[in-house]
Protein backbone atom coordinates (compact mmCIF):
# COMPACT_ATOMS: atom_id res chain seq x y z
CA UNK A 1 0.00 0.00 0.00
CA UNK A 2 1.31 3.39 -0.99
CA UNK A 3 1.03 5.86 1.91
CA UNK A 4 2.74 8.83 0.28
CA UNK A 5 3.03 10.03 -3.30
CA UNK A 6 5.59 12.64 -4.25
CA UNK A 7 4.76 14.35 -7.53
CA UNK A 8 6.98 16.61 -9.57
CA UNK A 9 5.39 19.97 -10.17
CA UNK A 10 5.65 19.58 -13.96
CA UNK A 11 3.56 16.37 -13.97
CA UNK A 12 1.27 17.19 -11.07
CA UNK A 13 -1.72 17.47 -13.38
CA UNK A 14 -0.60 14.85 -15.89
CA UNK A 15 -3.48 12.44 -16.60
CA UNK A 16 -1.43 9.47 -15.38
CA UNK A 17 -0.55 11.30 -12.16
CA UNK A 18 -4.21 12.05 -11.61
CA UNK A 19 -5.20 8.44 -12.25
CA UNK A 20 -2.61 7.14 -9.82
CA UNK A 21 -3.62 9.70 -7.21
CA UNK A 22 -7.21 8.60 -7.44
CA UNK A 23 -6.16 4.95 -7.14
CA UNK A 24 -4.39 5.77 -3.87
CA UNK A 25 -6.84 8.35 -2.66
CA UNK A 26 -5.79 7.93 0.98
CA UNK A 27 -2.14 8.59 0.27
CA UNK A 28 -0.46 11.81 1.31
CA UNK A 29 0.40 13.88 -1.76
CA UNK A 30 3.53 15.98 -1.64
CA UNK A 31 4.69 18.20 -4.46
CA UNK A 32 8.38 18.38 -5.33
CA UNK A 33 10.45 20.19 -7.96
CA UNK A 34 12.50 17.21 -9.11
CA UNK A 35 12.30 13.60 -8.02
CA UNK A 36 15.99 13.68 -7.17
CA UNK A 37 15.23 15.94 -4.18
CA UNK A 38 13.43 13.02 -2.57
CA UNK A 39 15.26 10.10 -4.13
CA UNK A 40 18.91 11.10 -4.03
CA UNK A 41 19.76 12.65 -0.63
CA UNK A 42 22.62 10.80 1.00
CA UNK A 43 21.34 10.29 4.52
CA UNK A 44 18.65 7.74 3.71
CA UNK A 45 18.41 4.11 4.68
CA UNK A 46 17.24 1.80 1.91
CA UNK A 47 16.46 -1.02 4.31
CA UNK A 48 14.30 1.10 6.59
CA UNK A 49 12.48 2.65 3.64
CA UNK A 50 11.82 -0.77 2.13
CA UNK A 51 9.30 -1.28 4.96
CA UNK A 52 7.08 1.42 3.54
CA UNK A 53 8.21 2.79 0.18
CA UNK A 54 6.56 5.85 -1.27
CA UNK A 55 5.78 6.45 -4.90
CA UNK A 56 7.42 9.31 -6.79
CA UNK A 57 5.85 10.47 -10.05
CA UNK A 58 8.33 12.21 -12.28
CA UNK A 59 9.17 13.30 -15.78
CA UNK A 60 12.20 11.92 -17.59
CA UNK A 61 14.05 14.25 -19.91
CA UNK A 62 16.89 12.27 -21.50
CA UNK A 63 18.58 8.88 -21.74
CA UNK A 64 15.30 7.11 -22.40
CA UNK A 65 17.01 4.22 -24.19
CA UNK A 66 20.50 3.06 -23.32
CA UNK A 67 22.77 0.40 -24.76
CA UNK A 68 22.86 -2.82 -22.79
CA UNK A 69 26.11 -4.77 -22.40
CA UNK A 70 26.67 -7.42 -25.07
CA UNK A 71 27.09 -9.97 -22.30
CA UNK A 72 23.35 -9.67 -21.65
CA UNK A 73 22.48 -10.62 -25.21
CA UNK A 74 19.84 -13.21 -25.93
CA UNK A 75 20.70 -13.59 -29.57
CA UNK A 76 21.18 -10.10 -30.98
CA UNK A 77 24.12 -7.76 -31.42
CA UNK A 78 21.87 -4.76 -30.74
CA UNK A 79 20.70 -4.62 -27.15
CA UNK A 80 19.09 -1.71 -25.37
CA UNK A 81 17.31 -1.11 -22.11
CA UNK A 82 14.92 1.47 -20.81
CA UNK A 83 13.61 2.20 -17.34
CA UNK A 84 10.19 3.70 -16.99
CA UNK A 85 10.49 2.93 -13.30
CA UNK A 86 13.27 2.83 -10.69
CA UNK A 87 13.11 0.27 -7.88
CA UNK A 88 11.00 -2.77 -7.35
CA UNK A 89 8.22 -3.91 -5.07
CA UNK A 90 10.09 -7.12 -4.33
CA UNK A 91 12.99 -7.31 -1.95
CA UNK A 92 15.48 -9.78 -3.38
CA UNK A 93 18.63 -9.83 -1.40
CA UNK A 94 20.89 -10.25 -4.44
CA UNK A 95 19.40 -7.28 -6.28
CA UNK A 96 21.89 -4.58 -7.25
CA UNK A 97 19.25 -1.86 -6.90
CA UNK A 98 19.60 -1.90 -3.11
CA UNK A 99 23.30 -1.14 -3.54
CA UNK A 100 22.84 1.39 -6.30
CA UNK A 101 20.09 3.61 -4.92
CA UNK A 102 19.95 5.38 -1.58
CA UNK A 103 16.18 5.34 -1.48
CA UNK A 104 13.77 2.42 -1.69
CA UNK A 105 10.98 4.66 -2.98
CA UNK A 106 9.57 3.81 -6.39
CA UNK A 107 10.10 6.38 -9.13
CA UNK A 108 7.68 6.23 -12.05
CA UNK A 109 8.33 8.38 -15.11
CA UNK A 110 4.89 9.21 -16.41
CA UNK A 111 5.85 10.64 -19.81
CA UNK A 112 5.56 7.27 -21.55
CA UNK A 113 5.25 8.89 -24.98
CA UNK A 114 8.84 10.09 -24.75
CA UNK A 115 9.95 6.50 -24.22
CA UNK A 116 7.90 5.48 -27.28
CA UNK A 117 9.64 8.06 -29.44
CA UNK A 118 13.10 7.03 -28.27
CA UNK A 119 12.40 3.32 -28.77
CA UNK A 120 11.02 3.91 -32.24
CA UNK A 121 13.92 6.14 -33.20
CA UNK A 122 16.47 3.60 -31.94
CA UNK A 123 14.77 0.70 -33.72
CA UNK A 124 14.64 2.68 -36.97
CA UNK A 125 18.35 3.47 -36.81
CA UNK A 126 19.43 -0.18 -36.97
CA UNK A 127 18.86 -2.62 -39.79
CA UNK A 128 19.09 -5.77 -37.71
CA UNK A 129 17.01 -7.13 -34.84
CA UNK A 130 17.15 -4.85 -31.82
CA UNK A 131 16.28 -6.11 -28.36
CA UNK A 132 14.82 -3.77 -25.77
CA UNK A 133 15.00 -4.87 -22.14
CA UNK A 134 12.47 -3.30 -19.83
CA UNK A 135 13.22 -4.99 -16.52
CA UNK A 136 16.60 -3.55 -15.67
CA UNK A 137 15.79 -1.04 -12.92
CA UNK A 138 12.44 -2.54 -11.94
CA UNK A 139 10.29 -5.63 -12.41
CA UNK A 140 8.54 -5.21 -15.77
CA UNK A 141 5.12 -6.35 -14.61
CA UNK A 142 4.92 -6.15 -10.83
CA UNK A 143 3.37 -2.68 -10.69
CA UNK A 144 1.57 -2.92 -14.05
CA UNK A 145 -1.92 -2.55 -12.53
CA UNK A 146 -0.79 0.86 -11.26
CA UNK A 147 1.43 2.05 -14.10
CA UNK A 148 -0.19 0.52 -17.19
CA UNK A 149 3.13 1.03 -18.94
CA UNK A 150 3.30 -2.35 -20.64
CA UNK A 151 -0.26 -2.00 -21.87
CA UNK A 152 0.80 1.34 -23.30
CA UNK A 153 4.00 0.19 -24.98
CA UNK A 154 2.89 -3.12 -26.52
CA UNK A 155 1.09 -1.52 -29.51
CA UNK A 156 4.33 0.26 -30.40
CA UNK A 157 6.22 -3.03 -30.57
CA UNK A 158 3.42 -4.57 -32.63
CA UNK A 159 4.23 -2.18 -35.42
CA UNK A 160 8.05 -2.35 -35.18
CA UNK A 161 9.33 -5.16 -37.42
CA UNK A 162 12.86 -5.43 -36.13
CA UNK A 163 12.30 -4.67 -32.44
CA UNK A 164 11.96 -7.22 -29.69
CA UNK A 165 10.77 -6.43 -26.20
CA UNK A 166 11.83 -8.42 -23.16
CA UNK A 167 9.63 -8.15 -20.09
CA UNK A 168 11.64 -9.49 -17.20
CA UNK A 169 9.61 -10.38 -14.17
CA UNK A 170 8.87 -12.45 -11.12
CA UNK A 171 5.32 -11.20 -11.12
CA UNK A 172 2.03 -12.96 -11.62
CA UNK A 173 0.39 -9.74 -12.89
CA UNK A 174 -0.23 -11.15 -16.35
CA UNK A 175 -3.88 -10.29 -16.91
CA UNK A 176 -2.97 -7.42 -19.22
CA UNK A 177 -0.99 -9.78 -21.42
CA UNK A 178 -3.63 -12.50 -21.45
CA UNK A 179 -6.25 -9.94 -22.48
CA UNK A 180 -4.46 -9.16 -25.74
CA UNK A 181 -3.20 -11.20 -28.66
CA UNK A 182 0.21 -12.74 -28.05
CA UNK A 183 3.12 -11.06 -29.80
CA UNK A 184 5.93 -13.02 -31.37
CA UNK A 185 8.37 -10.18 -30.65
CA UNK A 186 7.60 -9.83 -26.94
CA UNK A 187 9.36 -12.26 -24.65
CA UNK A 188 8.00 -12.68 -21.17
CA UNK A 189 11.11 -13.68 -19.26
CA UNK A 190 10.64 -15.11 -15.78
CA UNK A 191 13.42 -14.90 -13.23
CA UNK A 192 13.38 -18.22 -11.44
CA UNK A 193 15.22 -19.60 -8.44
CA UNK A 194 14.90 -22.94 -6.60
CA UNK A 195 12.10 -22.75 -4.06
CA UNK A 196 14.29 -22.98 -0.95
CA UNK A 197 16.46 -20.13 -2.17
CA UNK A 198 13.49 -18.07 -3.32
CA UNK A 199 11.95 -18.32 0.15
CA UNK A 200 15.22 -17.31 1.77
CA UNK A 201 16.28 -14.42 -0.41
CA UNK A 202 13.49 -13.30 -2.76
CA UNK A 203 11.37 -11.55 -0.15
CA UNK A 204 7.90 -10.38 -1.13
CA UNK A 205 8.19 -12.05 -4.57
CA UNK A 206 5.58 -14.62 -5.65
CA UNK A 207 6.57 -18.20 -4.80
CA UNK A 208 8.12 -20.33 -7.52
CA UNK A 209 4.92 -22.35 -8.03
CA UNK A 210 2.90 -19.20 -8.72
CA UNK A 211 5.50 -17.92 -11.18
CA UNK A 212 5.43 -21.25 -13.01
CA UNK A 213 1.64 -21.12 -13.15
CA UNK A 214 1.78 -17.64 -14.66
CA UNK A 215 4.44 -18.71 -17.13
CA UNK A 216 2.34 -21.69 -18.22
CA UNK A 217 -0.74 -19.52 -18.76
CA UNK A 218 1.22 -17.12 -20.95
CA UNK A 219 2.76 -19.99 -22.85
CA UNK A 220 -0.68 -21.45 -23.53
CA UNK A 221 -1.77 -18.06 -24.79
CA UNK A 222 1.09 -18.11 -27.27
CA UNK A 223 3.56 -15.68 -25.69
CA UNK A 224 7.26 -16.48 -26.23
CA UNK A 225 8.77 -17.39 -22.89
CA UNK A 226 12.20 -16.63 -21.50
CA UNK A 227 13.77 -18.33 -18.52
CA UNK A 228 16.30 -16.37 -16.52
CA UNK A 229 18.40 -18.45 -14.17
CA UNK A 230 20.33 -15.44 -13.13
CA UNK A 231 21.64 -15.20 -10.51
CA UNK A 232 22.51 -18.79 -9.71
CA UNK A 233 23.19 -18.86 -5.99
CA UNK A 234 25.79 -21.02 -4.32
CA UNK A 235 24.96 -23.30 -1.42
CA UNK A 236 26.42 -26.62 -0.31
CA UNK A 237 23.80 -28.69 -2.04
CA UNK A 238 23.46 -26.46 -5.10
CA UNK A 239 23.94 -29.33 -7.55
CA UNK A 240 21.05 -31.36 -6.11
CA UNK A 241 18.95 -28.26 -5.76
CA UNK A 242 19.45 -26.90 -9.27
CA UNK A 243 19.19 -30.28 -11.00
CA UNK A 244 15.77 -30.90 -9.45
CA UNK A 245 14.79 -27.29 -10.07
CA UNK A 246 15.63 -27.36 -13.79
CA UNK A 247 13.60 -30.54 -14.18
CA UNK A 248 10.70 -28.96 -12.29
CA UNK A 249 10.76 -25.90 -14.57
CA UNK A 250 11.19 -27.72 -17.87
CA UNK A 251 8.33 -30.09 -17.04
CA UNK A 252 6.14 -26.99 -17.59
CA UNK A 253 7.89 -25.67 -20.70
CA UNK A 254 6.86 -26.02 -24.30
CA UNK A 255 10.21 -25.93 -26.08
CA UNK A 256 8.54 -24.56 -29.21
CA UNK A 257 7.51 -21.43 -27.34
CA UNK A 258 10.73 -21.15 -25.40
CA UNK A 259 12.55 -18.15 -26.74
CA UNK A 260 15.70 -18.19 -24.64
CA UNK A 261 17.30 -19.23 -21.40
CA UNK A 262 19.99 -17.19 -19.74
CA UNK A 263 22.34 -18.32 -17.05
CA UNK A 264 24.65 -16.36 -14.77
CA UNK A 265 25.95 -16.54 -11.23
CA UNK A 266 25.47 -13.89 -8.55
CA UNK A 267 27.63 -10.90 -9.38
CA UNK A 268 27.45 -7.23 -8.48
CA UNK A 269 29.77 -4.22 -8.82
CA UNK A 270 32.07 -3.78 -5.84
CA UNK A 271 30.66 -0.39 -4.77
CA UNK A 272 27.10 -1.69 -4.76
CA UNK A 273 28.18 -4.83 -2.94
CA UNK A 274 29.71 -2.79 -0.13
CA UNK A 275 26.42 -0.92 0.31
CA UNK A 276 24.45 -4.16 0.24
CA UNK A 277 26.59 -5.70 2.98
CA UNK A 278 26.20 -2.57 5.10
CA UNK A 279 22.44 -2.84 4.75
CA UNK A 280 22.24 -6.57 5.38
CA UNK A 281 25.36 -7.72 7.26
CA UNK A 282 23.49 -10.74 8.59
CA UNK A 283 22.62 -12.02 5.10
CA UNK A 284 23.86 -15.53 4.40
CA UNK A 285 24.24 -14.80 0.68
CA UNK A 286 27.00 -12.32 1.50
CA UNK A 287 28.72 -14.59 4.00
CA UNK A 288 29.44 -17.26 1.40
CA UNK A 289 32.50 -17.87 -0.79
CA UNK A 290 32.55 -14.56 -2.65
CA UNK A 291 35.65 -12.94 -4.01
CA UNK A 292 35.24 -9.34 -2.94
CA UNK A 293 38.54 -7.95 -4.19
CA UNK A 294 37.56 -7.57 -7.86
CA UNK A 295 35.62 -4.68 -9.47
CA UNK A 296 32.73 -7.10 -9.86
CA UNK A 297 32.10 -9.18 -6.77
CA UNK A 298 31.19 -12.78 -7.54
CA UNK A 299 32.04 -16.30 -6.49
CA UNK A 300 35.67 -17.32 -6.58
CA UNK A 301 36.66 -18.04 -10.18
CA UNK A 302 36.96 -21.83 -9.87
CA UNK A 303 33.64 -22.08 -8.09
CA UNK A 304 31.91 -19.80 -10.59
CA UNK A 305 33.21 -21.95 -13.44
CA UNK A 306 32.13 -25.12 -11.67
CA UNK A 307 28.61 -23.78 -11.04
CA UNK A 308 28.14 -22.53 -14.59
CA UNK A 309 29.48 -25.72 -16.11
CA UNK A 310 27.23 -27.84 -13.96
CA UNK A 311 24.10 -25.79 -14.67
CA UNK A 312 24.87 -25.54 -18.39
CA UNK A 313 25.35 -29.30 -18.67
CA UNK A 314 22.08 -29.98 -16.90
CA UNK A 315 20.19 -27.41 -18.94
CA UNK A 316 21.47 -28.78 -22.22
CA UNK A 317 19.96 -32.13 -21.29
CA UNK A 318 16.59 -30.38 -21.27
CA UNK A 319 16.81 -27.80 -24.03
CA UNK A 320 18.60 -26.98 -27.30
CA UNK A 321 21.98 -25.26 -27.06
CA UNK A 322 21.08 -22.46 -29.46
CA UNK A 323 18.60 -21.03 -26.96
CA UNK A 324 20.99 -20.93 -24.01
CA UNK A 325 22.90 -17.71 -23.32
CA UNK A 326 25.57 -17.25 -20.70
CA UNK A 327 25.74 -13.99 -18.74
CA UNK A 328 29.16 -12.85 -17.60
CA UNK A 329 30.54 -9.65 -16.16
CA UNK A 330 34.24 -10.01 -16.70
CA UNK A 331 36.50 -8.24 -14.26
Amino acid sequence: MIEAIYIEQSVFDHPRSKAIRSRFSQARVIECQRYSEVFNPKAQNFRLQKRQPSLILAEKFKHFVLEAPLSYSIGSQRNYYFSHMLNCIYDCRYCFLQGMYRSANYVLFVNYEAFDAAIEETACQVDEPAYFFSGYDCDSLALEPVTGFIKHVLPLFRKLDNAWLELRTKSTQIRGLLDVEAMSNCIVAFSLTPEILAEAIEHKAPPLAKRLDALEKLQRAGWPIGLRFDPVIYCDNYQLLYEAFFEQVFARIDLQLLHSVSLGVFRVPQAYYRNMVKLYPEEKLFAGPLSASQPVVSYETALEREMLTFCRTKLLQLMPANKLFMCHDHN
Partner: protein
Amino acid sequence: MIHIVTALFCEAKPLIHHYRLNGQQAENGFRVYENDTMRLIIAGMGKCAAAAACAYLQGLAPKKKHIWLNLGIAGHDSLRVGEAILAQKVIDAATNTAWYPPLLFTPPCRTVTLISVDQPETGYVTDVACDMEASGFYATAARFNSCELVQVFKVISDNRVSPVQQVSEKTTQEIIRQQLDKLDAIIQQLRELEARLAEQQRKPAIDFFLQRWHFTVAQQHMLQRLSQRWQVLTGTALDSNQFVAEKNSKAVLGAIENKISVLPVRFD
Protein backbone atom coordinates in the same frame (compact mmCIF):
# COMPACT_ATOMS: atom_id res chain seq x y z
CA MET B 1 19.10 9.09 22.84
CA ILE B 2 16.34 11.39 21.60
CA HIS B 3 17.47 14.90 20.82
CA ILE B 4 14.76 17.54 20.87
CA VAL B 5 15.39 21.06 19.67
CA THR B 6 12.99 23.84 20.66
CA ALA B 7 13.35 27.54 20.10
CA LEU B 8 11.78 28.84 23.30
CA PHE B 9 11.60 27.86 26.93
CA CYS B 10 7.80 28.02 26.83
CA GLU B 11 7.80 25.37 24.09
CA ALA B 12 10.14 23.21 26.15
CA LYS B 13 8.47 23.57 29.52
CA PRO B 14 5.65 21.03 29.00
CA LEU B 15 8.23 18.47 27.87
CA ILE B 16 10.53 19.18 30.78
CA HIS B 17 7.67 18.32 33.13
CA HIS B 18 6.26 15.43 31.12
CA TYR B 19 9.57 13.64 30.61
CA ARG B 20 11.06 14.75 33.93
CA LEU B 21 14.07 16.35 32.33
CA ASN B 22 16.76 17.82 34.55
CA GLY B 23 18.47 21.08 33.72
CA GLN B 24 22.21 20.82 33.15
CA GLN B 25 24.72 23.35 34.35
CA ALA B 26 24.77 26.14 31.77
CA GLU B 27 28.49 26.28 30.97
CA ASN B 28 27.89 27.47 27.43
CA GLY B 29 25.37 29.34 25.37
CA PHE B 30 22.58 26.73 25.39
CA ARG B 31 20.30 25.45 28.11
CA VAL B 32 20.06 21.66 28.00
CA TYR B 33 17.63 19.43 29.93
CA GLU B 34 17.93 15.67 29.99
CA ASN B 35 17.04 12.33 31.43
CA ASP B 36 18.43 8.88 30.62
CA THR B 37 16.86 8.68 27.17
CA MET B 38 16.21 12.23 26.09
CA ARG B 39 18.10 15.48 25.73
CA LEU B 40 16.33 18.76 25.06
CA ILE B 41 18.01 21.98 24.00
CA ILE B 42 16.57 25.48 23.94
CA ALA B 43 18.07 26.96 20.81
CA GLY B 44 16.61 30.42 20.59
CA MET B 45 14.72 31.71 17.58
CA GLY B 46 15.77 31.28 13.96
CA LYS B 47 17.28 28.66 11.71
CA CYS B 48 20.90 29.52 12.54
CA ALA B 49 20.21 29.02 16.23
CA ALA B 50 18.47 25.73 15.51
CA ALA B 51 21.40 24.53 13.38
CA ALA B 52 23.90 25.55 16.05
CA ALA B 53 21.87 23.79 18.73
CA CYS B 54 21.86 20.57 16.69
CA ALA B 55 25.62 20.74 16.33
CA TYR B 56 25.97 21.45 20.05
CA LEU B 57 23.84 18.45 21.01
CA GLN B 58 25.65 16.14 18.64
CA GLY B 59 28.90 17.35 20.16
CA LEU B 60 27.78 16.05 23.54
CA ALA B 61 27.89 12.47 22.20
CA PRO B 62 29.58 12.80 18.83
CA LYS B 63 30.10 9.12 18.05
CA LYS B 64 26.49 8.14 18.64
CA LYS B 65 23.44 8.26 16.42
CA HIS B 66 20.37 9.93 17.84
CA ILE B 67 16.72 10.47 17.04
CA TRP B 68 16.18 14.12 16.16
CA LEU B 69 12.99 16.09 16.68
CA ASN B 70 12.31 19.75 16.19
CA LEU B 71 9.38 20.72 18.35
CA GLY B 72 7.70 24.09 18.45
CA ILE B 73 4.86 26.27 17.32
CA ALA B 74 3.94 27.26 13.77
CA GLY B 75 1.40 29.40 11.99
CA HIS B 76 -1.03 28.14 9.38
CA ASP B 77 -3.73 29.86 7.38
CA SER B 78 -6.56 27.47 8.16
CA LEU B 79 -5.63 24.77 10.66
CA ARG B 80 -7.10 25.30 14.09
CA VAL B 81 -4.94 26.60 16.89
CA GLY B 82 -3.70 23.67 18.95
CA GLU B 83 -3.62 21.16 16.07
CA ALA B 84 -0.44 19.07 15.86
CA ILE B 85 1.37 18.54 12.57
CA LEU B 86 4.34 16.64 11.25
CA ALA B 87 6.30 18.20 8.41
CA GLN B 88 6.19 16.21 5.18
CA LYS B 89 8.24 18.85 3.40
CA VAL B 90 10.43 21.56 4.86
CA ILE B 91 11.29 24.57 2.70
CA ASP B 92 13.85 27.19 3.48
CA ALA B 93 12.21 30.41 2.31
CA ALA B 94 15.50 32.24 1.77
CA THR B 95 17.08 29.64 -0.51
CA ASN B 96 14.01 27.70 -1.68
CA THR B 97 15.82 24.49 -0.67
CA ALA B 98 13.49 21.66 0.28
CA TRP B 99 13.80 18.57 2.45
CA TYR B 100 11.34 15.69 2.61
CA PRO B 101 11.40 13.90 5.98
CA PRO B 102 10.45 10.28 5.17
CA LEU B 103 7.59 9.13 7.38
CA LEU B 104 7.89 5.36 7.72
CA PHE B 105 4.97 5.06 10.10
CA THR B 106 1.35 6.12 10.13
CA PRO B 107 1.48 9.63 11.53
CA PRO B 108 -0.76 10.30 14.53
CA CYS B 109 -1.52 13.75 13.19
CA ARG B 110 -1.89 15.71 9.99
CA THR B 111 1.20 16.12 7.77
CA VAL B 112 1.81 19.44 6.02
CA THR B 113 4.41 21.42 4.16
CA LEU B 114 6.32 23.74 6.45
CA ILE B 115 8.18 26.83 5.31
CA SER B 116 10.91 28.34 7.46
CA VAL B 117 11.22 32.10 7.22
CA ASP B 118 13.93 34.45 8.46
CA GLN B 119 11.63 37.10 9.92
CA PRO B 120 8.32 36.67 11.76
CA GLU B 121 5.46 36.52 9.24
CA THR B 122 2.04 37.97 9.77
CA GLY B 123 0.65 36.82 6.42
CA TYR B 124 -0.34 33.21 5.70
CA VAL B 125 0.26 31.02 2.66
CA THR B 126 -2.53 28.62 1.74
CA ASP B 127 -2.06 25.12 3.14
CA VAL B 128 1.48 25.75 4.31
CA ALA B 129 2.64 26.02 7.90
CA CYS B 130 5.24 28.59 8.78
CA ASP B 131 8.02 28.64 11.38
CA MET B 132 11.54 30.02 11.79
CA GLU B 133 13.64 26.99 12.73
CA ALA B 134 12.82 23.78 10.87
CA SER B 135 15.05 24.30 7.83
CA GLY B 136 18.12 25.03 9.95
CA PHE B 137 17.29 22.11 12.16
CA TYR B 138 16.71 19.66 9.33
CA ALA B 139 19.73 20.64 7.24
CA THR B 140 21.99 20.07 10.25
CA ALA B 141 20.38 17.12 12.05
CA ALA B 142 20.17 15.09 8.82
CA ARG B 143 23.98 15.13 8.79
CA PHE B 144 24.05 13.17 12.02
CA ASN B 145 21.62 10.35 11.32
CA SER B 146 19.56 8.78 8.59
CA CYS B 147 16.76 11.21 7.73
CA GLU B 148 14.00 8.71 8.61
CA LEU B 149 14.96 9.48 12.21
CA VAL B 150 14.86 13.26 11.81
CA GLN B 151 11.38 14.75 12.10
CA VAL B 152 9.71 18.09 12.64
CA PHE B 153 6.71 18.23 14.96
CA LYS B 154 4.82 21.49 15.38
CA VAL B 155 1.66 22.68 17.07
CA ILE B 156 -0.35 25.36 15.32
CA SER B 157 -0.23 28.54 17.39
CA ASP B 158 -1.92 31.03 15.08
CA ASN B 159 -4.00 31.30 11.95
CA ARG B 160 -6.03 33.88 10.04
CA VAL B 161 -8.72 34.17 12.70
CA SER B 162 -6.37 33.92 15.65
CA PRO B 163 -3.27 35.87 14.54
CA VAL B 164 0.24 35.64 15.89
CA GLN B 165 -0.22 38.70 18.14
CA GLN B 166 -2.48 36.59 20.34
CA VAL B 167 0.18 33.96 20.98
CA SER B 168 1.56 34.09 24.50
CA GLU B 169 3.95 31.97 26.54
CA LYS B 170 0.99 30.62 28.47
CA THR B 171 -1.01 29.59 25.37
CA THR B 172 2.12 28.08 23.82
CA GLN B 173 2.71 25.89 26.86
CA GLU B 174 -0.91 24.86 26.92
CA ILE B 175 -1.27 23.88 23.25
CA ILE B 176 1.96 21.89 23.37
CA ARG B 177 0.96 20.19 26.60
CA GLN B 178 -2.27 19.06 24.96
CA GLN B 179 -0.38 17.33 22.14
CA LEU B 180 2.12 15.40 24.23
CA ASP B 181 0.28 12.13 23.59
CA LYS B 182 0.95 12.56 19.88
CA LEU B 183 4.56 13.40 20.59
CA ASP B 184 4.79 10.21 22.67
CA ALA B 185 3.36 8.19 19.76
CA ILE B 186 5.87 9.67 17.33
CA ILE B 187 8.76 9.05 19.69
CA GLN B 188 7.69 5.44 20.11
CA GLN B 189 7.60 4.92 16.34
CA LEU B 190 10.99 6.54 15.93
CA ARG B 191 12.43 4.38 18.70
CA GLU B 192 11.28 1.29 16.83
CA LEU B 193 12.96 2.52 13.67
CA GLU B 194 16.08 3.37 15.64
CA ALA B 195 16.17 -0.16 17.07
CA ARG B 196 15.97 -1.61 13.57
CA LEU B 197 18.72 0.64 12.37
CA ALA B 198 20.89 -0.20 15.38
CA GLU B 199 20.41 -3.90 14.69
CA GLN B 200 21.51 -3.32 11.12
CA GLN B 201 24.57 -1.38 12.22
CA ARG B 202 25.56 -3.59 15.15
CA LYS B 203 29.17 -4.68 14.93
CA PRO B 204 30.42 -7.96 16.35
CA ALA B 205 32.76 -7.68 19.34
CA ILE B 206 36.40 -7.98 18.36
CA ASP B 207 37.94 -6.61 21.54
CA PHE B 208 39.60 -9.89 22.52
CA PHE B 209 41.39 -9.95 19.18
CA LEU B 210 42.51 -6.35 19.55
CA GLN B 211 43.92 -7.03 23.03
CA ARG B 212 45.97 -9.96 21.80
CA TRP B 213 47.28 -8.75 18.45
CA HIS B 214 47.88 -5.38 16.79
CA PHE B 215 45.45 -4.76 13.90
CA THR B 216 45.67 -1.77 11.61
CA VAL B 217 42.40 0.11 11.00
CA ALA B 218 41.97 -1.62 7.63
CA GLN B 219 42.61 -4.97 9.29
CA GLN B 220 40.04 -4.16 11.98
CA HIS B 221 37.44 -3.67 9.27
CA MET B 222 38.40 -7.00 7.73
CA LEU B 223 38.19 -8.65 11.13
CA GLN B 224 34.73 -7.14 11.73
CA ARG B 225 33.46 -8.50 8.46
CA LEU B 226 35.01 -11.92 8.98
CA SER B 227 33.42 -12.05 12.44
CA GLN B 228 30.06 -11.19 10.92
CA ARG B 229 30.42 -13.90 8.29
CA TRP B 230 31.43 -16.42 10.93
CA GLN B 231 28.42 -15.52 13.03
CA VAL B 232 26.04 -15.78 10.06
CA LEU B 233 27.34 -19.16 8.96
CA THR B 234 27.78 -20.78 12.38
CA GLY B 235 25.29 -18.97 14.60
CA THR B 236 28.06 -18.46 17.16
CA ALA B 237 30.51 -15.67 17.97
CA LEU B 238 34.05 -15.92 16.69
CA ASP B 239 36.32 -17.03 19.55
CA SER B 240 39.83 -15.56 19.61
CA ASN B 241 41.08 -18.59 21.59
CA GLN B 242 40.90 -20.65 18.42
CA PHE B 243 43.72 -18.58 16.98
CA VAL B 244 46.18 -18.24 19.89
CA ALA B 245 48.86 -20.04 17.92
CA GLU B 246 48.92 -17.30 15.28
CA LYS B 247 51.83 -14.91 15.51
CA ASN B 248 50.38 -11.73 14.12
CA SER B 249 47.23 -10.07 12.87
CA LYS B 250 47.84 -11.05 9.26
CA ALA B 251 48.13 -14.69 10.23
CA VAL B 252 44.98 -14.43 12.34
CA LEU B 253 42.97 -13.00 9.43
CA GLY B 254 44.29 -15.72 7.13
CA ALA B 255 43.40 -18.42 9.62
CA ILE B 256 39.87 -17.08 10.07
CA GLU B 257 39.40 -16.92 6.31
CA ASN B 258 40.55 -20.51 5.99
CA LYS B 259 38.08 -21.64 8.62
CA ILE B 260 35.22 -19.72 7.03
CA SER B 261 35.99 -21.09 3.58
CA VAL B 262 35.13 -24.62 4.71
CA LEU B 263 31.95 -23.71 6.57
CA PRO B 264 28.75 -25.05 5.03
CA VAL B 265 26.44 -22.55 3.30
CA ARG B 266 22.84 -23.70 3.47
CA PHE B 267 19.60 -21.80 3.05
CA ASP B 268 17.20 -24.48 4.28
